[in-house]
């Protein structure tokens, strides 16, 4: 199944090649080229985890940067 999905996506050309599509294809039942399709559980989980992790990353980065800026201003 993995080989079929890889081959199909490769033959369509790289403009439509992406990891999310690949993930949902190998997870089983999805046809991601259509809106309103039946999606896999993996895709649903990714829709929640990816944005939350990106948000946490930005918040942590901002926190660390503000701490560094405060420390630098105190040193000066």
């Amino acid at each position, binding site marked *: 199944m993995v080989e079929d999905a890889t081959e199909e996506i490769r033959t369509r050309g790289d*403009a*439509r090649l*992406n990891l*999310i*599509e690949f993930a*949902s294809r190998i997870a089983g039942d999805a046809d*991601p*080229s*259509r*809106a*309103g*399709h*039946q*999606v896999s559980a993996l*895709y*649903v989980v*990714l*829709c*929640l985890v*990816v*944005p*939350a*992790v*990106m*948000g*946490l*990353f*930005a*918040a942590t980065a*901002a*926190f660390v940067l503000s701490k560094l800026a405060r420390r630098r201003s105190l040193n000066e």
Partner: protein
Amino acid sequence: MLEIHLPVADTTVFAPWVVLLGASVGFLSGLFGVGGGFILTPMLNILFGIPYNVAAGSDLAQMLGTSVSATSRHRGFGHVDVRLGLCMLAGAWLGTELGARVVEFLKIVGRITVAGRELSGLDLFIPLAFLVLLSVIGTVVLRESLRARKRPPRGGAVETPIIKWVQGIRLPPMISLRTSGIRISIWILIGIGFATGFLAGFMGIGGGFVLMPTLIYVIGVPTTMAIGTGLFYIMFVAAFGSYTHALKGNVDLVLAVLLLLGSIFGAQVGAWLTEKVRGAKIRYWFSLAVFVSAIAVLAKLVVQLGVLGSPGS
């Protein structure tokens, strides 16, 4: 090279434009305590031709990341009333699911003829709902903020007859919100949560652009506290909305990630700015952003209906 195909929306977009749109919306999100869906959903449809159901679902996914990013910043400033947010969430779950089901119904309702033009139910009712809400909220907030800029309210909280009436309702159980400095019936908070949750599911918005003015003008929460608490609430609504839309195949994760690349950093800048600007000025800017979005939705509807004789898109 920078053109990316969106698998669910089935369209190709120029990635930097999408990231830039995400950054602008993230900035507004951090500054106004809104998810940004009231601007982003119509803009995705107007600028990139993404169907409303996919724009709404993907919007909620990016909103999840943006609200996580901005809430943590506001919590650091002490702008989040956790008890207030959790009470509203109790009503939001049912409202969000109901809104998403109405979108599903509109998908199958077929095409509707208006002024001789055929439109799908989604393309007609969602923009109309946006237009009415944006116009009403923009007008109310603009009028109040202009008055408040001349005569600022004491203690940061706005005073209106509605606030006195709502806070006077003694329907038990009552809850004391010490962080916001008010005491109110828990049923009012659950009702507000239900209404904003419905908007989240139906229109692909976190409900923040309704929640922020509601907290300020109906409950009497200070502006900066309304912004932080609104974002805290939106974080949960967006997670649930994203989940239910993903199940229905309405979330394009590639689109959501592109938007997030800009919005998570824009949100940090917007949140930082709330510490530097007065509440009345923030509300004035908010009303202008609402009007810009209303004009964009109206322009799209006018073109679609061919009212001015231009070809339908």
